[in-house]
Every structure is written in structure tokens, then in C-alpha cells.
């Protein structure tokens, strides 16, 4: 082996430079900021989600600040292509598409969060219980098994078809559509959370907590929940987008919402304008784009959140490269070369 120069000192494990690591109650925020700065796509997703949420709140409080026309207000122009006056064009009834897309924002975002949130709360709680107390031949085990069979029943139907069937049977209306999607949505969270609990609850640190005398309920809600929270939050963020798509699909197929009407919704807009797709493409382009942007922004944000929440991937941001990588080993001058000398051509 060739002699090599001594390697330079390794980068310190923890960056002690001032400002490199802030502690205190605001530390998650600093980390979040650092992750966003280093990851432009998550940053874009974060900004778009913030903008959409802000716009939704504004529209809900006072639509006149952002929206030029009411949902069924006649503008005086039919089938206008996008222009400065009508950024997304107008339809055959003379309604402004831009106004309707914006007015649908609170409905669609609210539905996304509400469905995913209730499914998370209900399914997540059941999943925690089913995963943690699953010892066979006990009360907990019986509860766990029955819960799982129940989710199996729900999951054995194609969820979209089931949701459509429930919507049809409940009748038209936003609330009915929300209920229908919820009924098909919570079993996924039971499965997800239960799987995560099963993976975590046999970890040595759970046994260690038990050995330290921590009670079972506290182990579940402090030690187990804290360790599965990160993937669940990430999944939830991504899921808001999925719910949006599903709701738009149901709105498109089952028509629970009357459009044009007082509460516009992207899926029902696309349904209403589908016949004009070739003639006046902007009528379905912009509602579709709204769905796309919302879903994409939520998945980008979900990826960014994953980096923030996992302390192990956080290390990548704590340990900034302060020292240049070691130079390639320099062979000792006196060492014989290991390379075979090429035979000289004669």
C-alpha cells in the first residue's frame, strides 16, 4: 500500500458556529426555513399553498377584494377568449370563469381539508388502538380484529364506485358528497396508522420506555405517536390533494353541486363545460389547472415537511460542509508505482 498524507480533520458532527443551530421554542421554524431555502421545489409548494389558503380566506371573508364578478353575474360578453378584462374568459351564459374559479377555492380547499382531517382523526385513532392492543385472546385483540375486518369490507369495494353509490343514494348536495367520500376514506388511515404502530411498537426504545416504568397509555400517545407522526403528517398533506381530485371526480360524475350556482366547484365546472372543450378550451382548462396546481402544491409541501419532521434527515442541514473534502491520497514519492509499465514498441 502506498503511503498517504494524513487526512485532514473530519467535519465536526455538530455545527457550533453561531446561528448554525438555534434552540428554543422557535427551533422548528428555523429548521423549516432552512429546509425551504435548500429545497426550492418544496418552497414553491409552500408558497402556492400559502397563497391559495390566503386567497380562500379572503374570498370567504369578502369576495369583492379579489373577485370581479359574482358567481352568476352577467358580464355582457359571451364566449370571450381570455383577455385582460376576463383573464380566464367567459362562457355561453356570460359568466366570468376567473371569478368562478376563485370563488370555488374555499369550497374545494375546505372540502379537501375537512375530509382528510376527519378521516385522519377517526381512522387514525382506530388505527392506533388496533395496532397497539392487538394481543390475541384479549379484549384489545378482539377489538383490533373486528376493526380490521370492518376496514377490509370497506376496502374490498372500489372506493370511487362506493363513494359514487353513496352519493347517489344520499341525494344531491355538498354535505352528502363529503359524507360519501368520508365513508370510503377512513379505512385507509386505519391501515396506515396501524402499520406504523406495529412497526414502532416492537422497537427497543419502546421496551426501554416500558422498562423505565412508563404506563401503556402514555407509551402509546407519547412514544409511539411521536414516532409515527411524521409519516402521517406527510401522508395527510399529500392526501389533501388526492381528496381534491376525488371530490372533483365525484362532482364531475355524480353532479352533487349545481353549476352555475351560488357555490361553484372545479369538478362541476369541468362537467358543465365539457361539451365546449374543443371550441372554447379555456372554460375547462382553467378549472382543471386549478385542481392540478392545488394537488401538485400539496405534494411538494408534503415532501418538504418530511425533511423538516424527521430529525435524522434534519442532520443534513445541521452538518453544513465546513471543511473541504479530503484530497485524493498522494503516493509517497519513493514508493514504486503499481501501474505496469507499458512495453515499449520496438
Amino acid at each position, binding site marked *: 500500500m502506498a503511503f498517504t498524507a494524513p487526512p485532514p480533520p473530519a467535519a465536526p458532527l455538530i455545527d457550533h458556529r453561531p446561528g448554525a443551530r438555534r434552540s428554543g421554542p422557535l427551533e422548528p421554524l428555523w429548521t423549516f426555513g432552512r429546509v425551504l431555502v435548500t429545497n426550492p421545489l418544496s418552497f414553491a409548494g409552500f408558497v402556492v399553498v400559502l397563497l391559495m389558503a390566503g386567497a380562500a380566506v379572503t374570498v370567504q371573508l369578502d369576495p369583492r377584494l379579489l373577485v370581479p364578478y359574482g358567481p352568476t353575474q352577467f358580464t355582457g360578453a359571451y364566449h370571450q377568449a381570455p383577455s385582460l378584462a376576463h383573464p380566464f374568459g367567459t362562457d355561453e351564459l356570460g359568466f366570468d370563469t376567473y371569478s368562478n374559479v376563485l370563488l370555488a377555492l374555499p369550497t374545494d380547499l375546505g372540502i379537501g381539508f375537512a375530509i382528510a382531517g376527519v378521516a385522519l382523526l377517526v381512522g387514525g385513532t382506530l388505527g392506533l388502538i388496533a395496532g397497539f392492543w392487538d394481543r390475541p385472546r384479549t379484549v384489545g385483540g378482539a377489538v383490533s380484529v373486528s376493526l380490521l375486518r370492518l376496514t377490509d369490507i370497506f376496502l374490498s369495494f372500489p372506493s370511487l364506485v362506493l363513494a359514487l353509490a353513496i352519493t347517489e343514494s344520499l341525494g344531491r348536495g355538498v354535505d352528502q358528497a363529503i359524507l360519501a367520500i368520508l365513508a370510503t376514506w377512513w379505512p385507509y388511515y386505519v391501515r396506515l396508522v396501524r402499520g406504523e404502530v406495529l412497526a414502532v411498537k416492537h422497537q*427497543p426504545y419502546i421496551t*426501554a420506555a*416500558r*422498562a*423505565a*416504568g412508563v404506563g401503556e397509555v402514555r407509551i402509546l400517545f407519547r412514544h409511539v405517536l411521536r414516532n409515527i407522526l411524521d409519516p402521517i403528517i406527510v401522508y395527510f398533506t399529500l392526501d389533501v390533494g388526492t381528496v381534491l381530485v376525488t371530490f372533483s371526480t365525484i362532482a364531475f360524475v355524480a353532479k352533487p353541486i349545481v353549476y352555475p350556482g351560488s357555490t361553484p366547484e372545479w369538478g362541476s365546472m369541468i362537467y358543465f363545460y365539457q361539451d365546449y372543450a374543443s371550441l372554447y378550451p379555456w372554460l375547462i382548462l382553467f378549472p382543471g389547472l386549478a385542481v392540478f396546481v392545488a394537488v401538485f402544491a400539496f405534494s411538494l409541501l408534503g415532501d418538504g415537511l418530511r425533511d423538516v419532521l424527521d*430529525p435524522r434527515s434534519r442532520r443534513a442541514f445541521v452538518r453544513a460542509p465546513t471543511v473541504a473534502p479530503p484530497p485524493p491520497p498522494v503516493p509517497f514519492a519513493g514508493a514504486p508505482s503499481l501501474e505496469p509499465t507499458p512495453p515499449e514498441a520496438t
Partner: protein
Amino acid sequence: MTEPILTVDGLCVDYVVGAGRFRALDDVSFTIEPGRVLGIVGETGCGKSTLAHAIPRLLPEPPARVRKGRVVFQGTDLLPLPRGRLPSIRGTGIGMIFQEPLNSLNPSFRVFEQLAEAVRVRRLRESVPGARGAPVEPGPFDYTRRPLESPAEALSRPIRPGGPVGEALARPAPVSREVRDEVLEYLRLVRINDPETILRLYPHELSGGMRQRIMIAMALSEKPALLIADEPTSALDVTIQAQVLTLMKELIEEVRASILFISHDLGVIAETADDLGVMYAGHLVEVGPVAEVFDRPRHPYTRALLRAAPSRYKSDGPLDTIPGSVPNLSHLPAGCTFHPRCPIARPVCAVDPGPPLAARAPSPGTGRVHASACHFPEEVSGR
């Protein structure tokens, strides 16, 4: 003779996997007296860790199943206790240090939160005697002596609900100065430099030796009456092992708790333990004061194990080995489990498992039991 702090009596633990039944522990009996350190040695798979986990009932059931026996801790048999009362025994009663320091700290909590939880568990129990399960006697280890509570203080204390729900509902006290100071104190106790910085770190930012020190600090901060150390050094590399062992030795001197020290390293046991138990294939084959067992082993397996240990003073040729291989725990040989490999085995060994360890009276010389499960203990030391 003082009342033993822990009495394990005829403990049998099986692992039931599919149709197979593996006898991990078979009729294990021993006692630990207050302030003594009992070392348990044995080769891999002989049931050392099963024993360590079975005492505070931490074995996953299934697959494990305690077939029979008693584990009497401070006068209470732990095995028939309902599960809900076990947390009140663990931690402050029986503390544990685990084999895998890398995975035994919760990756989502900072060092401070890990230690503060242990400190808070102990403080909660000190403040509410008898509220949760059996009253837990404070261990002989009293690092910071608590003043006795006056009746007026006891009356003004808020009444909290008991049980696991009560503990879950009890709001974690705000990070008080006292808890923080105590956590820092325990970090210094396990010789951690700059504890203020270490407090804020996550486990993945610490080295293996550091993590094991944190584990030790966690276990000690609950002031357990009995500490079970399950191979605390085997996952660490040799230099760190030496550091942690030195620390353990110093702490054993300092805290004077009763300790069950499990290891496969004879040298470690020789330096730390007062008594020594030797395990083979789920059986405890010999128990006695550590010097006596080392000098005059009374079981052929102990003698073979001692001969097989490398010694820096002995370099004449290859190390001794034990002929044959460890028996399959699902098909143990009849009689004494060691007889197929035993150099002094006789026909009776294949039939009779040997005298039970518990039946032996204390030897008249030292007053301490030096018992062996061998039929012919005199022949072992004679050779």
C-alpha cells in the same frame, strides 16, 4: 440473613413458535440480597437476556410464555400481577440497562426529554405514595436524599388520579428548574462533559458510548432498588467498552444498588460481581461467590468455560474448547443438559437432571451458598 430483594424460584420460560416449543429458561432459581451484584455468564443463546427481560415481565408474549415459577421482588410475586400494575414496579423498582444503546433511546426525543421523563416518573411516584399499584420502596441507592414530608405538606398536596389513565392525564410538570438540575446532575454522574450541550442533542447525534451513558443515567435517575444490566457493553467497540465498564464499576461502588449484571465476558464479571451464576442451555448450573466459583468451580461446564477464556498470561498453544455443540433448545437431552459434552459424565447423568440449586444449604465457611447442579461437584474441582 437479610431479606433478599429478588427471589427467582423455578422460573420456566418457553418460546412457542409455530408447533415448536423452545425451553429458553428451565427451572432457574436464585436470590439477590440488598447491595450485592450478581453476575450471570453463559454463551450466546443460553437464556441470559430472556432472564433479564422475564424479571420485569418485558418479554413479548407471544411468543414467550412463562410456564411456571415465581419472581418475588420485595415480597411481591410479579408473575400473577395484572399488567396494569407492572409500570409501578418498573423503573423505580426494577431498572434496566439494555444491550442495544443504539436503538434503546427514542429517536424523536432530545436527551433532556428522555432523562426528564425518567426523573418525572420517579418524582410522580415519590409524591403520590401508593397511588399507583404497590407502594414502591425507595432503593438503597439514594443519590440526593429527599427530606421527609411533613403532615402539613402531605395534606396540601393535590390529589391525583391513579392508574395508567391517571398517569397519562397528569400533565407533565412544566420544565422546572429542579428537573433540569437533576437531569444535569445525572449526566455529570455518568461522566458526561458539557452536559448543557448534550441535553439538546438527539440520540442520532451521539456516539454509542455516549448513548449507553445516557441509558445508564436514565436507569439510575429512577433510583431503582434493583438494576438489571443486560450486556451493557456488548454492542460497543472495545475501547468504548472499557470506558463504559470503568464507569459501571465506579457507579456500582457509588450507588450500592442490587444489580443483576449479565454478560458473556468472564473478565467483566470477575471485576464487577460479588456472586456469579453460570447458565447453560436455559439452566442455571452453578451459583456462588465469584472468587469461589473462579477458583473452585463445582460444575464441569463452568470449568470448561473458564479454561476456554483467553488469558494474557497463558500463551502455551491454542485455547481450550468445549467438545460438541450447544443443544437445540427444542430437543434438550434428557437428564443433565450438559452430559453429552461432559468429560466426567456417568450413566446417571443421562437420566437424572441433577440436584436442584435451591436445595443446597449455605456452605459453613463463608455463609454463602455455592451450589452446583452437577451430580459430582467434588470431582470437578479435584481435577
